[in-house]
């Protein structure tokens, strides 16, 4: 009987030769005494190799999806890992916990990224913390330019979060904003995502292709995005109609496109004060959805009409105090006229020490019947602007005047939360870093 070790040594040698290109027949001829025992093993080896040839040419079908899912999982787990470490600290001692909370708040005020929740995405336990932290950051943002930048950063985060949740095939509630890129039946492309619009989707203000919209919805475990609500990014402002050459009206300092779908209430006329609800587009153009003329002056014969303001006066929608009618016995002195400040460029906000130069008082437009200087319109906000989660992506701040400390805002100034400008705010020396 053949020695087992001897046979194994020959088999090892033959397997190497087979790999190097020899055929089974050549090897069996080389070892005729062992051929009967070697033959089946070498044929099996040849078959194994042939089978390998087939599988080596196979490619995974879902490679790209798996790659995205793998990296999304990594991002999620990375955040969870930091959470575990930090929670360990919190659980050790109430004193340590208190100190860490205080430290976290200080870091938050300083603008540092709240690392614990920064990597969280919708569906994570800490996602609410992340959003709350963003609200805190916004509430501390005194500088309107930084506030807008911050909001734009948060907007990008929402998009990245949706992408991560979609890649991870996680069912979660999401919200993001972006332009409507296409509308094909129930499939809308918004901000780079295909969004399913169902019969349950609430659609506000008839967004069209190009409109900026806010999407609130949820993702399914297969990656689909279902829209629960699509709302056109609206801009609200008030101003005086300076021009009405269709299709573009000039209202205050803005050019607004008016279409047949624009709802116009009141008596349309030049020089009248209006409130406008418009749809914003990525190129900063505005499409008026609603223009509301103030007809209160028309109903008061002999009374002067409201003096148009030189610039549009932003107002909180539906919260503006009614325009106070001028009193006949009161004559405003010229020095009581509001002193509008120069409209500075956004970069001016980086120079808090600079005091804006006042410009000339506005020239009031004299309308028929306006035989005296009426009292300026009061339009102050009844509520401070609320920080919003979803920033408006396209609007840069306007009229971000930086009055000197102690400056009392003129009566025509009113902040508009949708414009992210806070004309009454003095710049804070505390720097709010980027999140």
């Amino acid at each position, binding site marked *: 009987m053949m020695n087992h070790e001897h046979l194994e040594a020959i088999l090892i040698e033959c397997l190497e030769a087979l790999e190097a290109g020899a055929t089974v027949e050549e090897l069996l001829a080389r070892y005729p005494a062992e051929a009967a025992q070697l033959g*089946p093993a070498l044929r099996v080896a040849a078959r194994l190799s042939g089978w390998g040839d087939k599988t080596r040419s196979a490619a*995974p079908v879902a490679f790209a999806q798996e790659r995205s899912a793998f990296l999304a999982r990594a991002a999620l787990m990375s955040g969870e890992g930091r959470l575990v470490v930090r929670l360990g600290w919190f659980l050790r001692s109430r004193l340590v916990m208190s100190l860490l909370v205080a430290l976290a708040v200080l870091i938050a005020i300083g603008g540092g990224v709240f690392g614990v929740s920064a990597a969280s995405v919708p569906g994570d336990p800490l996602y609410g913390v992340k959003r709350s932290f963003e609200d805190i950051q916004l509430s501390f943002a005194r500088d309107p330019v930084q506030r807008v930048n911050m909001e734009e950063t948060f907007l990008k985060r929402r998009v990245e979060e949706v992408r991560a949740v979609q890649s991870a095939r996680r069912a979660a509630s999401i919200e993001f904003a972006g332009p409507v890129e296409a509308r094909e039946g129930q499939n809308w492309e918004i901000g780079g995502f295909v969004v399913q619009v169902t019969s349950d989707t609430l659609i506000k203000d008839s967004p069209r292709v190009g409109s900026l919209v806010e999407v609130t919805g949820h993702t399914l475990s297969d990656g689909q995005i279902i829209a629960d609500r699509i709302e056109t990014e609206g801009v609200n402002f008030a101003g005086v109609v300076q021009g009405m050459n269709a299709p573009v009206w000039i209202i205050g300092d803005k050019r607004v496109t008016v279409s047949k779908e624009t709802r116009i209430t009141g008596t349309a006329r030049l020089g009248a004060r209006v409130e406008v609800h418009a749809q914003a587009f990525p190129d900063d153009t505005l499409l008026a959805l609603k223009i509301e003329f103030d007809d209160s002056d028309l109903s008061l014969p002999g009374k002067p009409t409201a003096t148009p303001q030189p610039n549009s006066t932003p107002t909180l929608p539906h919260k503006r105090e009614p325009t106070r009618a001028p009193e006949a016995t009161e004559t405003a002195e010229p020095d009581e006229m509001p002193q509008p400040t120069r409209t500075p460029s956004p970069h001016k906000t980086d120079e808090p020490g600079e005091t804006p130069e006042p410009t000339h008082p506005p020239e009031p437009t004299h309308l028929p019947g306006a035989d005296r200087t009426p009292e300026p319109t009061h339009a102050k906000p009844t509520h401070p602007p609320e920080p919003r989660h979803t920033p408006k992506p396209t609007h840069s701040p306007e009229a971000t005047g930086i009055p000197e400390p102690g400056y009392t805002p003129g009566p025509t100034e009113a902040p508009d939360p949708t414009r992210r400008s806070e004309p009454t705010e003095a710049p804070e020396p505390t720097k709010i870093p980027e999140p």
Partner: protein
Amino acid sequence: MSDEHKLLARARRFDQDALAQIHDEYYAPIFRYALYRTGDRETAEDIASEVFTRLLQGLRSGTGPTTTLPGWLFGVASRVVSDHFRRVYRSPSVELDDGIRDYDDTPSTLTIAALEHEELRQALKALTEEQQHVIALRFGQEMPIREVARILGKTEGAVKQLQARAVAALARLMRSYP
């Protein structure tokens, strides 16, 4: 520090670029390894996905690869394949293992070559896990003896012997080898 160790160090910090590089380099080989052993594309994709999920878990918990990344990945793939076979054996609803005996039930569209491959694949399952691993690396991946030795942490001679015994065992199992 070698490139592989630098890559692993970055991966342990969950560096996205490093993880993407690892995925790009090893996902397809792991898939093909699993395909060679299971013969089913869908199963192979699931196994490859599971291997990379375990990689992330290992990196996070500190039980991930420390020396050889491919060794760790193929080692985990081998265990996941074995777990898969065990689940299949336990599950009465899956009848893959009857195939080798019930040729009459095989769809007529299968070729003789396919049947032989199925016979071979079923015979492979009867080998030890280490033998199956070596066969898959050597014949499925065409991995050189030296690389397999590095992955298994064995000498090249030990790998050659392991491979020869696995082939001989297969031949016996297929009743073609005395």
